[in-house]
Protein backbone atom coordinates (compact mmCIF):
# COMPACT_ATOMS: atom_id res chain seq x y z
CA UNK A 1 0.00 0.00 0.00
CA UNK A 2 1.33 3.45 -0.86
CA UNK A 3 1.85 6.07 1.79
CA UNK A 4 -0.93 8.30 0.46
CA UNK A 5 -3.50 5.47 0.42
CA UNK A 6 -2.34 4.44 3.89
CA UNK A 7 -2.85 7.99 5.12
CA UNK A 8 -6.32 8.03 3.64
CA UNK A 9 -7.24 4.80 5.41
CA UNK A 10 -5.73 6.02 8.67
CA UNK A 11 -7.72 9.25 8.43
CA UNK A 12 -10.93 7.39 7.65
CA UNK A 13 -10.32 5.02 10.56
CA UNK A 14 -9.62 7.83 12.98
CA UNK A 15 -12.74 9.64 11.82
CA UNK A 16 -14.91 6.53 12.02
CA UNK A 17 -13.62 5.84 15.49
CA UNK A 18 -14.45 9.37 16.60
CA UNK A 19 -17.88 9.45 15.01
CA UNK A 20 -19.09 5.86 15.12
CA UNK A 21 -17.57 4.19 18.17
CA UNK A 22 -20.27 5.13 20.68
CA UNK A 23 -23.05 4.45 18.18
CA UNK A 24 -21.70 0.96 17.42
CA UNK A 25 -21.24 0.10 21.10
CA UNK A 26 -24.65 1.53 22.04
CA UNK A 27 -26.48 -0.28 19.23
CA UNK A 28 -24.89 -3.60 20.13
CA UNK A 29 -25.43 -3.09 23.84
CA UNK A 30 -29.17 -2.61 23.24
CA UNK A 31 -29.38 -5.54 20.84
CA UNK A 32 -27.47 -8.02 23.02
CA UNK A 33 -27.95 -6.56 26.50
CA UNK A 34 -24.28 -7.03 27.28
CA UNK A 35 -21.84 -4.14 27.49
CA UNK A 36 -18.78 -6.34 27.55
CA UNK A 37 -19.84 -8.13 24.38
CA UNK A 38 -20.73 -4.79 22.75
CA UNK A 39 -17.35 -3.29 23.51
CA UNK A 40 -15.39 -6.36 22.42
CA UNK A 41 -17.36 -6.74 19.20
CA UNK A 42 -16.93 -3.03 18.44
CA UNK A 43 -13.19 -3.27 19.09
CA UNK A 44 -12.97 -6.34 16.84
CA UNK A 45 -14.90 -4.56 14.09
CA UNK A 46 -12.47 -1.64 14.18
CA UNK A 47 -9.51 -4.05 14.18
CA UNK A 48 -11.00 -5.79 11.14
CA UNK A 49 -11.48 -2.41 9.48
CA UNK A 50 -7.75 -1.74 9.79
CA UNK A 51 -7.09 -4.89 7.72
CA UNK A 52 -9.98 -4.77 5.26
CA UNK A 53 -9.95 -1.08 4.48
CA UNK A 54 -6.21 -1.19 3.81
CA UNK A 55 -6.74 -4.06 1.35
CA UNK A 56 -10.10 -3.15 -0.21
CA UNK A 57 -10.33 0.59 0.33
CA UNK A 58 -12.61 2.57 2.64
CA UNK A 59 -16.27 1.49 2.24
CA UNK A 60 -18.78 4.12 1.09
CA UNK A 61 -20.62 4.07 4.43
CA UNK A 62 -17.99 3.37 7.12
CA UNK A 63 -20.50 3.59 9.97
CA UNK A 64 -22.83 1.02 8.44
CA UNK A 65 -19.91 -1.24 7.59
CA UNK A 66 -18.66 -1.09 11.17
CA UNK A 67 -22.09 -1.75 12.70
CA UNK A 68 -22.71 -4.73 10.41
CA UNK A 69 -19.25 -6.13 11.06
CA UNK A 70 -19.60 -5.64 14.80
CA UNK A 71 -22.95 -7.49 14.76
CA UNK A 72 -21.26 -10.41 12.99
CA UNK A 73 -18.44 -10.40 15.52
CA UNK A 74 -20.94 -10.37 18.37
CA UNK A 75 -22.88 -13.30 16.90
CA UNK A 76 -19.66 -15.25 16.31
CA UNK A 77 -18.67 -14.65 19.88
CA UNK A 78 -22.07 -15.63 21.24
CA UNK A 79 -21.98 -18.88 19.25
CA UNK A 80 -18.57 -19.71 20.63
CA UNK A 81 -19.60 -18.86 24.16
CA UNK A 82 -22.94 -20.62 23.90
CA UNK A 83 -21.13 -23.86 23.36
CA UNK A 84 -19.23 -23.15 26.53
CA UNK A 85 -21.94 -21.60 28.64
CA UNK A 86 -25.16 -22.45 26.93
CA UNK A 87 -27.78 -21.65 29.49
CA UNK A 88 -26.50 -18.36 30.79
CA UNK A 89 -25.83 -16.67 27.46
CA UNK A 90 -28.98 -17.88 25.82
CA UNK A 91 -31.04 -16.54 28.69
CA UNK A 92 -29.39 -13.14 28.33
CA UNK A 93 -29.94 -12.94 24.59
CA UNK A 94 -33.56 -14.05 24.87
CA UNK A 95 -34.18 -11.40 27.50
CA UNK A 96 -32.75 -8.56 25.50
CA UNK A 97 -33.32 -9.42 21.85
CA UNK A 98 -36.75 -7.78 21.67
CA UNK A 99 -37.50 -4.28 20.46
CA UNK A 100 -36.07 -1.53 22.68
CA UNK A 101 -38.16 -0.75 25.74
CA UNK A 102 -39.99 2.58 25.54
CA UNK A 103 -37.83 5.19 27.23
CA UNK A 104 -39.99 8.28 27.21
CA UNK A 105 -39.18 11.59 25.60
CA UNK A 106 -35.73 10.81 24.27
CA UNK A 107 -34.92 7.59 22.54
CA UNK A 108 -31.25 7.49 21.75
CA UNK A 109 -29.06 4.48 22.22
CA UNK A 110 -26.13 6.61 23.24
CA UNK A 111 -28.13 8.35 25.94
CA UNK A 112 -29.21 4.95 27.25
CA UNK A 113 -25.59 3.85 27.21
CA UNK A 114 -24.63 7.04 29.04
CA UNK A 115 -27.13 6.52 31.87
CA UNK A 116 -26.01 2.93 32.26
CA UNK A 117 -22.34 3.95 32.45
CA UNK A 118 -23.27 6.66 34.97
CA UNK A 119 -25.41 4.42 37.18
CA UNK A 120 -25.31 5.39 40.88
CA UNK A 121 -24.54 1.79 41.87
CA UNK A 122 -21.10 2.38 40.31
CA UNK A 123 -18.46 4.43 42.10
CA UNK A 124 -17.74 7.81 40.48
CA UNK A 125 -14.27 6.85 39.15
CA UNK A 126 -15.82 3.75 37.57
CA UNK A 127 -18.58 5.83 35.94
CA UNK A 128 -16.11 8.26 34.46
CA UNK A 129 -13.82 5.51 33.20
CA UNK A 130 -16.65 3.47 31.74
CA UNK A 131 -18.24 6.45 29.99
CA UNK A 132 -14.95 7.55 28.47
CA UNK A 133 -14.34 4.01 27.24
CA UNK A 134 -17.83 3.05 26.07
CA UNK A 135 -19.26 6.43 25.01
CA UNK A 136 -16.12 8.49 24.44
CA UNK A 137 -14.18 5.67 22.78
CA UNK A 138 -10.94 6.55 24.56
CA UNK A 139 -8.45 3.75 25.07
CA UNK A 140 -7.80 2.40 28.54
CA UNK A 141 -4.32 3.97 28.29
CA UNK A 142 -5.72 7.42 27.52
CA UNK A 143 -8.20 7.21 30.38
CA UNK A 144 -5.51 5.99 32.77
CA UNK A 145 -3.36 8.90 31.74
CA UNK A 146 -6.17 11.42 32.16
CA UNK A 147 -6.64 10.32 35.76
CA UNK A 148 -3.01 9.68 36.58
CA UNK A 149 -3.33 6.00 37.40
CA UNK A 150 -1.60 2.93 35.95
CA UNK A 151 -3.21 1.46 32.80
CA UNK A 152 -3.57 -1.93 34.53
CA UNK A 153 -5.43 -0.25 37.40
CA UNK A 154 -7.72 1.54 34.97
CA UNK A 155 -8.27 -1.67 33.01
CA UNK A 156 -9.33 -3.45 36.20
CA UNK A 157 -11.62 -0.58 37.12
CA UNK A 158 -13.44 -0.82 33.78
CA UNK A 159 -13.56 -4.61 33.84
CA UNK A 160 -15.00 -4.60 37.34
CA UNK A 161 -17.63 -2.00 36.38
CA UNK A 162 -18.73 -4.02 33.37
CA UNK A 163 -18.85 -7.20 35.47
CA UNK A 164 -21.05 -5.46 38.02
CA UNK A 165 -23.41 -4.15 35.33
CA UNK A 166 -23.77 -7.68 33.97
CA UNK A 167 -23.96 -9.61 37.26
CA UNK A 168 -26.11 -7.20 39.26
CA UNK A 169 -28.11 -6.51 36.09
CA UNK A 170 -27.90 -2.76 35.94
CA UNK A 171 -30.58 -2.02 33.33
CA UNK A 172 -29.76 -0.53 29.96
CA UNK A 173 -32.21 2.33 29.80
CA UNK A 174 -32.91 5.96 30.50
CA UNK A 175 -34.20 6.24 34.10
CA UNK A 176 -37.86 6.84 34.83
CA UNK A 177 -39.04 10.43 35.20
CA UNK A 178 -39.11 10.03 38.96
CA UNK A 179 -35.44 8.93 39.15
CA UNK A 180 -34.13 11.37 36.55
CA UNK A 181 -33.18 14.41 38.66
CA UNK A 182 -31.13 12.29 41.04
CA UNK A 183 -29.40 10.52 38.19
CA UNK A 184 -28.59 13.80 36.48
CA UNK A 185 -25.65 14.93 38.63
CA UNK A 186 -23.49 11.91 37.95
CA UNK A 187 -24.10 12.20 34.23
CA UNK A 188 -23.25 15.93 34.19
CA UNK A 189 -19.97 15.37 36.04
CA UNK A 190 -18.98 12.66 33.60
CA UNK A 191 -19.89 14.75 30.54
CA UNK A 192 -17.95 17.70 31.86
CA UNK A 193 -14.87 15.51 32.26
CA UNK A 194 -15.26 14.27 28.69
CA UNK A 195 -15.62 17.84 27.47
CA UNK A 196 -12.46 18.82 29.33
CA UNK A 197 -10.53 15.93 27.81
CA UNK A 198 -11.54 17.29 24.40
CA UNK A 199 -10.84 20.86 25.45
CA UNK A 200 -7.25 19.93 26.23
CA UNK A 201 -6.09 16.39 25.51
CA UNK A 202 -4.32 14.76 28.42
CA UNK A 203 -1.78 13.28 26.02
CA UNK A 204 -0.72 13.79 22.43
CA UNK A 205 1.86 10.98 22.53
CA UNK A 206 0.00 8.79 20.06
CA UNK A 207 -0.70 11.60 17.62
CA UNK A 208 -3.87 12.79 19.37
CA UNK A 209 -4.67 16.41 18.56
CA UNK A 210 -4.18 18.79 21.50
CA UNK A 211 -7.80 19.92 21.12
CA UNK A 212 -10.37 17.35 20.08
CA UNK A 213 -13.57 18.88 18.70
CA UNK A 214 -15.05 15.38 18.38
CA UNK A 215 -14.96 14.95 22.16
CA UNK A 216 -16.16 18.45 22.99
CA UNK A 217 -18.77 18.11 20.26
CA UNK A 218 -19.95 14.76 21.59
CA UNK A 219 -20.17 16.14 25.14
CA UNK A 220 -22.22 19.09 23.86
CA UNK A 221 -24.45 16.78 21.82
CA UNK A 222 -25.12 14.60 24.85
CA UNK A 223 -25.84 17.59 27.09
CA UNK A 224 -28.32 18.83 24.47
CA UNK A 225 -30.01 15.45 24.60
CA UNK A 226 -30.17 15.66 28.38
CA UNK A 227 -31.67 19.12 28.07
CA UNK A 228 -34.47 17.76 25.89
CA UNK A 229 -35.12 15.30 28.69
CA UNK A 230 -34.86 17.87 31.51
CA UNK A 231 -35.76 21.24 29.92
CA UNK A 232 -36.30 23.01 33.25
CA UNK A 233 -33.15 21.77 34.94
CA UNK A 234 -30.85 24.69 35.72
CA UNK A 235 -27.65 22.69 35.95
CA UNK A 236 -28.19 20.95 32.61
CA UNK A 237 -28.76 24.37 31.03
CA UNK A 238 -25.76 25.70 32.95
CA UNK A 239 -23.45 22.96 31.74
CA UNK A 240 -24.64 23.41 28.17
CA UNK A 241 -24.03 27.17 28.39
CA UNK A 242 -20.60 26.59 29.91
CA UNK A 243 -19.60 24.18 27.17
CA UNK A 244 -20.91 26.44 24.39
CA UNK A 245 -19.06 29.48 25.72
CA UNK A 246 -15.81 27.51 25.97
CA UNK A 247 -16.32 25.77 22.63
CA UNK A 248 -16.98 29.15 20.99
CA UNK A 249 -13.33 30.06 21.57
CA UNK A 250 -11.94 26.85 20.10
CA UNK A 251 -10.67 28.21 16.77
CA UNK A 252 -8.95 31.10 18.52
CA UNK A 253 -7.16 28.78 20.93
CA UNK A 254 -4.65 27.51 18.35
CA UNK A 255 -2.32 29.63 16.24
CA UNK A 256 -1.20 28.79 12.68
CA UNK A 257 1.57 26.53 14.00
CA UNK A 258 -0.78 24.60 16.27
CA UNK A 259 0.42 26.45 19.37
CA UNK A 260 -1.98 27.21 22.21
CA UNK A 261 -3.13 30.81 22.52
CA UNK A 262 -4.17 31.86 26.06
CA UNK A 263 -7.42 33.77 26.54
CA UNK A 264 -5.93 37.29 26.80
CA UNK A 265 -4.02 36.86 23.51
CA UNK A 266 -6.88 35.34 21.51
CA UNK A 267 -8.22 37.03 18.39
CA UNK A 268 -11.78 37.59 19.56
CA UNK A 269 -13.05 37.97 16.00
CA UNK A 270 -12.37 34.26 15.62
CA UNK A 271 -14.78 33.34 18.38
CA UNK A 272 -17.95 31.64 17.18
CA UNK A 273 -20.55 34.37 17.67
CA UNK A 274 -23.42 31.93 17.21
CA UNK A 275 -22.22 29.75 20.10
CA UNK A 276 -21.49 32.81 22.24
CA UNK A 277 -25.01 34.12 21.61
CA UNK A 278 -26.60 30.78 22.47
CA UNK A 279 -24.51 30.49 25.65
CA UNK A 280 -25.38 34.04 26.74
CA UNK A 281 -29.06 33.39 26.06
CA UNK A 282 -28.98 30.31 28.31
CA UNK A 283 -27.22 32.21 31.10
CA UNK A 284 -29.83 35.00 30.87
CA UNK A 285 -32.67 32.49 30.97
CA UNK A 286 -31.27 30.99 34.16
CA UNK A 287 -30.79 34.41 35.78
CA UNK A 288 -34.43 35.28 35.10
CA UNK A 289 -35.66 32.25 37.06
CA UNK A 290 -34.14 33.69 40.25
CA UNK A 291 -33.34 30.15 41.44
CA UNK A 292 -30.02 29.81 43.26
CA UNK A 293 -27.47 28.61 40.68
CA UNK A 294 -25.44 25.44 40.97
CA UNK A 295 -21.78 25.16 40.04
CA UNK A 296 -22.25 24.78 36.29
CA UNK A 297 -24.45 27.84 36.13
CA UNK A 298 -21.86 29.89 38.01
CA UNK A 299 -19.08 28.60 35.73
CA UNK A 300 -21.24 29.50 32.73
CA UNK A 301 -21.75 33.00 34.14
CA UNK A 302 -17.97 33.38 34.55
CA UNK A 303 -17.48 32.43 30.93
CA UNK A 304 -20.28 34.78 29.93
CA UNK A 305 -18.31 37.64 31.54
CA UNK A 306 -15.21 36.66 29.56
CA UNK A 307 -17.07 36.33 26.28
CA UNK A 308 -18.89 39.64 26.80
CA UNK A 309 -15.66 41.63 26.95
CA UNK A 310 -14.67 43.22 23.63
CA UNK A 311 -11.01 42.87 24.64
CA UNK A 312 -9.00 41.12 27.33
CA UNK A 313 -8.31 44.49 28.99
CA UNK A 314 -12.02 45.23 29.15
CA UNK A 315 -12.77 42.06 31.15
CA UNK A 316 -14.82 42.78 34.27
CA UNK A 317 -12.48 40.92 36.63
CA UNK A 318 -14.28 42.12 39.74
CA UNK A 319 -17.40 40.39 38.43
CA UNK A 320 -15.38 37.25 37.64
CA UNK A 321 -13.93 37.24 41.15
CA UNK A 322 -17.36 37.75 42.72
CA UNK A 323 -18.64 34.76 40.76
CA UNK A 324 -15.67 32.66 41.89
CA UNK A 325 -16.47 33.63 45.48
CA UNK A 326 -19.99 32.35 44.85
CA UNK A 327 -18.53 29.15 43.39
CA UNK A 328 -16.26 28.63 46.41
CA UNK A 329 -19.37 28.69 48.60
CA UNK A 330 -20.82 25.84 46.52
CA UNK A 331 -17.61 23.87 45.98
CA UNK A 332 -14.57 24.69 48.08
CA UNK A 333 -12.24 22.36 46.15
CA UNK A 334 -8.55 23.14 45.56
CA UNK A 335 -9.08 23.43 41.80
CA UNK A 336 -11.82 26.04 42.29
CA UNK A 337 -9.58 27.96 44.70
CA UNK A 338 -6.77 27.84 42.13
CA UNK A 339 -9.01 29.28 39.42
CA UNK A 340 -10.26 31.93 41.80
CA UNK A 341 -6.64 32.94 42.39
CA UNK A 342 -6.27 33.66 38.67
CA UNK A 343 -9.09 36.20 38.91
CA UNK A 344 -7.68 37.47 42.20
CA UNK A 345 -4.39 38.28 40.44
CA UNK A 346 -6.24 40.59 38.07
CA UNK A 347 -8.10 42.38 40.85
CA UNK A 348 -5.57 42.49 43.71
CA UNK A 349 -2.31 41.69 41.92
CA UNK A 350 -0.03 38.67 41.60
CA UNK A 351 1.38 38.91 45.14
CA UNK A 352 -2.02 38.43 46.77
CA UNK A 353 -2.86 35.68 44.28
CA UNK A 354 0.39 33.82 44.93
CA UNK A 355 -0.36 33.84 48.66
CA UNK A 356 -3.69 32.19 47.85
CA UNK A 357 -2.05 29.63 45.56
CA UNK A 358 0.80 28.43 47.79
CA UNK A 359 -1.41 26.64 50.39
CA UNK A 360 -2.87 24.49 47.60
CA UNK A 361 0.43 22.74 46.90
CA UNK A 362 -0.27 19.63 48.98
CA UNK A 363 -3.54 19.00 47.19
CA UNK A 364 -2.42 19.97 43.69
CA UNK A 365 1.26 19.08 43.49
CA UNK A 366 0.52 16.58 40.66
CA UNK A 367 -1.76 19.02 38.80
CA UNK A 368 -0.11 20.84 35.93
CA UNK A 369 -2.37 23.90 36.10
CA UNK A 370 -1.21 24.51 39.66
CA UNK A 371 2.43 24.81 38.56
CA UNK A 372 1.55 26.74 35.40
CA UNK A 373 -0.53 29.25 37.38
CA UNK A 374 2.17 29.59 40.01
CA UNK A 375 4.81 30.05 37.29
CA UNK A 376 2.81 32.85 35.70
CA UNK A 377 2.36 34.65 39.01
CA UNK A 378 6.08 34.32 39.88
CA UNK A 379 6.99 35.62 36.41
CA UNK A 380 4.78 38.67 36.90
CA UNK A 381 6.47 39.29 40.25
CA UNK A 382 9.89 39.19 38.56
CA UNK A 383 10.91 36.07 40.50
CA UNK A 384 12.29 34.56 37.30
CA UNK A 385 14.32 31.63 38.68
CA UNK A 386 11.39 30.36 40.67
CA UNK A 387 9.08 30.97 37.72
CA UNK A 388 11.28 28.88 35.41
CA UNK A 389 11.39 26.06 37.98
CA UNK A 390 7.60 26.16 38.24
CA UNK A 391 7.27 26.09 34.43
CA UNK A 392 9.54 23.04 34.43
CA UNK A 393 7.33 21.36 37.01
CA UNK A 394 4.27 22.06 34.85
CA UNK A 395 6.05 20.81 31.72
CA UNK A 396 7.00 17.62 33.55
CA UNK A 397 3.32 16.90 34.22
CA UNK A 398 2.14 17.70 30.68
CA UNK A 399 1.93 15.25 27.78
CA UNK A 400 0.01 17.52 25.46
CA UNK A 401 2.59 18.68 22.86
CA UNK A 402 0.87 22.02 22.22
CA UNK A 403 0.69 22.75 25.90
CA UNK A 404 4.32 21.76 26.41
CA UNK A 405 5.34 24.08 23.57
CA UNK A 406 3.35 26.91 25.13
CA UNK A 407 4.92 26.36 28.55
CA UNK A 408 8.44 26.05 27.10
CA UNK A 409 7.97 29.33 25.24
CA UNK A 410 6.74 31.02 28.40
CA UNK A 411 9.63 29.58 30.40
CA UNK A 412 12.24 30.64 27.87
CA UNK A 413 10.77 34.13 27.69
CA UNK A 414 11.25 34.41 31.45
CA UNK A 415 14.80 35.61 31.92
Amino acid at each position, binding site marked *: MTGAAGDEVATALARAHREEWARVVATLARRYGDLDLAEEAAAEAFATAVERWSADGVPPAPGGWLTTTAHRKAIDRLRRERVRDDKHREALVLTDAGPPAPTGAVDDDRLRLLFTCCHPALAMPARVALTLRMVGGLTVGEIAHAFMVQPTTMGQRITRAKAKIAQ*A*RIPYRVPTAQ*DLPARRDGVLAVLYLIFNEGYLASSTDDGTQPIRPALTGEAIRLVRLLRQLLPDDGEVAGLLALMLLVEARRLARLDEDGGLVPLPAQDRTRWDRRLVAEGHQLVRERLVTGEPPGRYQVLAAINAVHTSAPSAEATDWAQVLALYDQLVRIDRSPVVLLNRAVALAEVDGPQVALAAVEPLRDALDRYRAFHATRADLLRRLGRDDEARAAYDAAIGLTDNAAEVAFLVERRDATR
Partner: protein
Amino acid sequence: MQYLLSVIHDGTDLATDAEMAAIDAFNDQLRADGHWVFAGGLGGPDVATTIDNRDDAGLVVDGPFVETKEFVVGFWILEAPDLDVALRLAREASKACHRKIEVRPFL
Protein backbone atom coordinates in the same frame (compact mmCIF):
# COMPACT_ATOMS: atom_id res chain seq x y z
CA MET B 1 -33.44 -12.51 38.71
CA GLN B 2 -33.09 -12.79 42.49
CA TYR B 3 -31.34 -10.41 44.88
CA LEU B 4 -30.21 -10.85 48.47
CA LEU B 5 -30.97 -7.81 50.60
CA SER B 6 -28.85 -8.11 53.74
CA VAL B 7 -29.95 -6.03 56.70
CA ILE B 8 -26.90 -4.39 58.28
CA HIS B 9 -26.89 -3.09 61.83
CA ASP B 10 -24.45 -2.39 64.66
CA GLY B 11 -26.43 -4.10 67.42
CA THR B 12 -28.71 -7.04 68.14
CA ASP B 13 -31.61 -4.93 69.37
CA LEU B 14 -34.85 -6.23 67.87
CA ALA B 15 -37.11 -4.17 65.66
CA THR B 16 -39.41 -1.85 67.58
CA ASP B 17 -43.18 -2.28 67.29
CA ALA B 18 -43.32 0.59 64.80
CA GLU B 19 -40.50 -0.94 62.74
CA MET B 20 -42.16 -4.35 62.87
CA ALA B 21 -45.43 -2.87 61.63
CA ALA B 22 -43.61 -1.14 58.75
CA ILE B 23 -41.77 -4.36 57.86
CA ASP B 24 -45.07 -6.31 57.83
CA ALA B 25 -46.65 -3.74 55.53
CA PHE B 26 -43.59 -3.82 53.24
CA ASN B 27 -43.70 -7.63 53.14
CA ASP B 28 -47.41 -7.61 52.25
CA GLN B 29 -46.63 -5.25 49.39
CA LEU B 30 -43.75 -7.48 48.23
CA ARG B 31 -46.13 -10.45 48.08
CA ALA B 32 -48.82 -8.45 46.29
CA ASP B 33 -46.32 -7.23 43.67
CA GLY B 34 -44.71 -10.62 43.11
CA HIS B 35 -41.27 -9.74 44.55
CA TRP B 36 -41.43 -11.94 47.65
CA VAL B 37 -39.25 -15.06 47.85
CA PHE B 38 -38.14 -15.36 51.49
CA ALA B 39 -37.04 -13.26 54.44
CA GLY B 40 -35.91 -13.68 58.01
CA GLY B 41 -34.14 -12.20 61.02
CA LEU B 42 -30.88 -13.64 62.35
CA GLY B 43 -29.23 -14.04 65.71
CA GLY B 44 -26.19 -11.80 66.21
CA PRO B 45 -22.49 -12.61 65.84
CA ASP B 46 -22.30 -13.52 69.53
CA VAL B 47 -24.41 -16.62 68.82
CA ALA B 48 -22.57 -17.49 65.58
CA THR B 49 -20.41 -20.57 65.16
CA THR B 50 -17.85 -20.76 62.37
CA ILE B 51 -16.87 -24.13 60.92
CA ASP B 52 -13.78 -24.79 58.78
CA ASN B 53 -13.81 -28.37 57.66
CA ARG B 54 -11.65 -27.91 54.57
CA ASP B 55 -9.38 -30.92 54.24
CA ASP B 56 -11.22 -32.42 57.23
CA ALA B 57 -9.66 -29.81 59.50
CA GLY B 58 -12.65 -30.07 61.83
CA LEU B 59 -12.23 -26.53 63.17
CA VAL B 60 -15.05 -25.06 65.22
CA VAL B 61 -14.81 -21.44 66.31
CA ASP B 62 -17.21 -19.82 68.74
CA GLY B 63 -18.03 -16.56 66.96
CA PRO B 64 -18.39 -14.97 63.51
CA PHE B 65 -15.85 -15.52 60.70
CA VAL B 66 -14.77 -11.92 61.07
CA GLU B 67 -15.40 -9.43 63.86
CA THR B 68 -16.96 -6.24 62.53
CA LYS B 69 -18.67 -3.26 64.06
CA GLU B 70 -21.66 -3.82 61.79
CA PHE B 71 -23.03 -7.20 60.78
CA VAL B 72 -25.93 -8.93 59.05
CA VAL B 73 -29.00 -9.13 61.29
CA GLY B 74 -31.51 -10.30 58.70
CA PHE B 75 -32.24 -10.61 55.01
CA TRP B 76 -34.75 -10.62 52.20
CA ILE B 77 -34.49 -12.69 49.05
CA LEU B 78 -36.44 -10.89 46.37
CA GLU B 79 -37.41 -11.37 42.78
CA ALA B 80 -36.73 -8.27 40.64
CA PRO B 81 -36.19 -7.78 36.91
CA ASP B 82 -33.11 -5.56 37.32
CA LEU B 83 -30.97 -3.63 39.78
CA ASP B 84 -33.04 -0.43 39.53
CA VAL B 85 -36.07 -2.31 40.87
CA ALA B 86 -33.94 -4.10 43.48
CA LEU B 87 -32.49 -0.77 44.65
CA ARG B 88 -35.94 0.80 44.84
CA LEU B 89 -37.14 -2.11 47.00
CA ALA B 90 -33.97 -1.85 49.09
CA ARG B 91 -34.71 1.83 49.76
CA GLU B 92 -38.19 0.89 50.96
CA ALA B 93 -36.79 -2.00 53.01
CA SER B 94 -34.20 0.24 54.67
CA LYS B 95 -36.86 2.77 55.54
CA ALA B 96 -39.23 0.10 56.89
CA CYS B 97 -36.74 -1.70 59.16
CA HIS B 98 -34.72 1.45 59.86
CA ARG B 99 -31.40 -0.25 59.09
CA LYS B 100 -28.84 -0.29 56.29
CA ILE B 101 -29.34 -2.69 53.38
CA GLU B 102 -26.70 -4.31 51.18
CA VAL B 103 -27.94 -5.54 47.79
CA ARG B 104 -26.29 -8.46 46.00
CA PRO B 105 -27.39 -10.39 42.95
CA PHE B 106 -27.67 -14.16 42.96
CA LEU B 107 -25.47 -15.69 40.27
